[in-house]
C-alpha cells in the first residue's frame, strides 16, 4: 500500500481521534464532505460527532478551539486555505499564543494550514505565511516536507501542550508518496539531514526541500556534493544541526518559498552568522520567492518561486567563490 502526504495527514488525524478522546476537528466542510482537500475524508463517519462543520468564521473558529483547549480538549482546526487564517490571525497570535504565558494554563490547539503555491491558484490560495506566525511568541510553527513527517509531526503537534501552526504544503498533497507510515520519527524541534554532502549546505523546508534535492542531484553530476538540511520546524529552529552542517561545508544557501523580506531565510542566515561566523568561507546566500503576490498564470507562478534550476544556479555561484 502506498500513501500520499495528504493521506498521511488524514491518517494522523484518524489516529489522534482514535487514541485520544479529547481530540476533535473543527473547520469548514470538514464533516460529511471530508474537507476541501479531503484531509478529513470519512472521519465524520468513523468518529461521529467529533468532526464539526464550522460557519465561515475564522476568528470564531480559532476562539472556540482556544476555549475548548483550556477546558481540556485537543482541537484541530482546519483552515480551508492558509490564506484565510489571516482573518483569524488575531485569535491565533493574541488569544492562543498568549494564553499559557498570561494564565499558566496550556492552550493545546493545532491549526492546520493548507499552504504554499500551486499552479493556477493565484494571490489568495498560495501564500507561505509561516514567518508571520513564527515572529509571535507562544506558537510552534511546523513545515513537514515528507509523508512521514506529515504524519508523525501532526500526531506530535496534537500531543503538544502549546498552540501549533501546522503548515502542510498543498503542492505535496498528492505529488508525494511513501510506502508506509513511520513507526518512529525525529522529535519536533530537530532538523533532518535530507541529503549528505561536503561542498555546500542548503537549508530549506517544506516543498522547497524537493526542489533542493533535484538541484543537488543535478550538481552532483557536476561533481559537487550538496548537503541539504530540512528544517521540519521553523519555530523552534534547530540551529545546532544547521551550524554543524555549515561547519562541514563552509558554505550556506538558504531557500524559502516565502517572500524575501524577513522570514525563515533571514532568520537562518542571521543565526548562522551570529553563532557560526568563522565557519563560513563565503558569504551566505538566500533564495526566496519574488516580492509580489503569488501570480495565477503558470508561467508567472513558476518564475515567482525558487525552483531546482534557480537553486542550482545560486548554488553554482556560491560554489565558484
Amino acid at each position, binding site marked *: 500500500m502506498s500513501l500520499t502526504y495528504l493521506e498521511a495527514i488524514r491518517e494522523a488525524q484518524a489516529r489522534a481521534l482514535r487514541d485520544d478522546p479529547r481530540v476533535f476537528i473543527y473547520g*469548514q466542510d470538514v464533516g460529511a464532505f471530508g474537507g476541501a482537500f479531503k484531509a478529513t475524508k470519512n472521519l465524520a463517519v468513523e468518529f461521529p460527532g467529533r468532526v464539526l462543520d464550522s460557519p465561515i468564521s475564522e476568528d470564531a473558529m480559532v476562539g472556540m478551539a482556544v476555549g475548548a483547549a483550556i477546558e481540556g480538549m485537543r482541537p484541530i482546526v482546519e483552515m480551508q486555505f492558509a490564506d484565510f487564517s489571516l482573518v483569524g490571525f488575531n485569535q491565533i497570535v493574541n488569544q492562543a499564543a498568549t494564553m499559557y504565558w498570561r494564565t499558566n494554563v496550556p492552550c493545546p490547539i493545532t491549526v492546520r494550514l493548507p499552504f504554499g503555491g500551486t499552479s493556477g491558484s493565484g494571490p489568495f490560495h498560495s501564500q507561505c505565511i509561516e514567518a508571520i506566525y513564527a515572529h509571535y511568541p507562544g506558537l510552534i510553527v511546523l513545515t513537514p516536507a515528507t509523508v512521514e513527517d506529515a504524519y508523525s509531526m501532526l500526531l506530535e503537534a496534537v500531543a503538544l501542550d502549546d498552540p501549533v501552526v501546522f503548515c502542510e504544503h498543498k503542492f505535496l498533497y498528492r505529488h508525494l508518496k511513501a510506502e508506509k507510515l513511520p513507526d518512529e520519527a525525529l522529535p519536533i524541534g530537530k532538523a533532518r539531514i535530507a541529503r549528505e554532502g561536503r561542498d555546500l549546505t542548503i537549508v530549506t523546508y517544506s516543498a522547497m526541500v524537493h526542489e533542493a534535492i533535484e538541484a543537488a542531484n543535478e550538481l552532483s553530476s557536476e561533481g559537487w556534493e550538496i548537503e541539504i538540511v530540512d528544517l521540519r520546524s521553523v519555530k523552534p529552529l534547530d540551529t545546532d544541526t544547521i551550524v554543524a552542517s555549515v561547519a562541514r561545508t563552509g558554505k550556506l544557501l538558504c531557500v524559502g518559498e516565502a517572500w524575501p523580506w524577513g522570514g525563515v531565510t533571514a532568520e537562518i542566515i542571521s543565526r548562522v552568522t551570529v553563532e557560526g561566523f568563522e565557519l563560513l568561507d563565503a558569504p551566505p546566500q538566500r533564495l526566496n520567492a519574488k516580492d509580489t503576490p503569488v501570480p495565477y*498564470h503558470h508561467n508567472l507562478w513558476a518564475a515567482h518561486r525558487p525552483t531546482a534550476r534557480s537553486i542550482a544556479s545560486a548554488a553554482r555561484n556560491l560554489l565558484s567563490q
Partner: protein
Amino acid sequence: MLQTALDTKPSQDTKSACDIHLSAFRYMLLARVLDEKFAALYRAGGKIHGGVFLGRGQEGLSAAIGVSLQKGDVFAPLIRDAAGRLAFGETVLDSVRTYLGSAHGPMRGRDGNVHRGNVHEGLLPMISHLGAMISVVNGILLARRFQKKFGTVGAACIGDGATSTGAFHESLNQAAVEKLPLVLVIADNQYAYSTPTSRQFACDNLADKATGYGVDVQTVDGTDFSACLKVAGEAVSRARRGDGPQMIVAKLLRLCGHGEHDVADYVDPELKKSPLGRDCLKLAQDFLIQKKWLDETQLAAMKGEIIHEIEAAVAQAQREPAPDPFSEVWRALASEHLSEGNAED
C-alpha cells in the same frame, strides 16, 4: 466596456418591461453558455489552471442586479455572477482572457478565473476572502460623497455562507451608519460549498438580519428572474434616492458543484425537487415565450449569436500571448523608486 454595455442597456426607466426582461434574459443565457464553455475547457484539461466556478441557477438574480445598475455605478460581484458582470458591461472576451490567463486580459495573468474586474469601470475584482469587498464598495461610495458626485449606487453580492464572516457584519453596519447607497445582494443558495445553511446560521431567514442593522430588505424568489428584476430595480432606485443601504435576500439553489471539481452529491435531493431547485433560465424562457416577448426562432437566433460570440472570444484569447516572466514587471509597489526589487532578478 461600459460603453458597449450601455448600447445594449439604456437606463432602465426609459425601457419597456419587455426590453428589460429580454435584455436580462440574454445575459442569463450568455452567462450560462459561457459557464458551460469554461466547464468544457476545464474538463478538457490543460487550458485552464486552477478552478472553474459557475453561476448555474443564479443567472436570473445576477443578471437582474447587472441590468438594474447604470454606467457610473459600482459593482462587486462574487463567484457566481457571470451574468451580472456581463450585464454590467464586462465583455465575454475579458472573462475568457482571465480564465485562460491572457496577457491582454484585465488581470494580465496575475490573477484569474472569478478574480477579475476593472476598477476604472466600477467593476471590482474580488479578493478571495469572503465579505472583504463590501467595505471597499462603501469606500468608493464615501469618496463620491466627499467629491459631491451624487446619484450613483454600489452593489455587492455575497452568499449565505459569507454572511458568517466578520467582514460582512462590519461592512454592512458601516454602510448603515454612513447611510451609503449600498445594495447588498445575498444569494441564499442553501449551501456554502458543502455546508448546509443549518450549520451556517440559526435565524429563519437571512432577511431577519436587516432590522438589526437598520437597513431595508426584500426577500425574493431567486428562480424567478422577473421577480428579481422588480426587487433589484426597486432596491437600486431606493438606494439612488438616498434611502440608505438596501438588502436583498434571494432564495435559490446552486445547480452546480461549488466548483467544477465538485460533484456535489451532498445536495439534498428534496431541495432539487423543491421550487428552489427550478432552473431560472428555463423559467425565464417559458415566461418570455408565454408572454410572446420571445419566440423559438428568435431564441434560436439569440443562442446562435451567443455561441458565435463566445467561440470567437475563446479563439482570440487563445491566440493572445501568455504573460512572459522575463518581461514581467516584478514589482508590487506603484512607487518604483521605493521598490526593493528582487535579488533573484
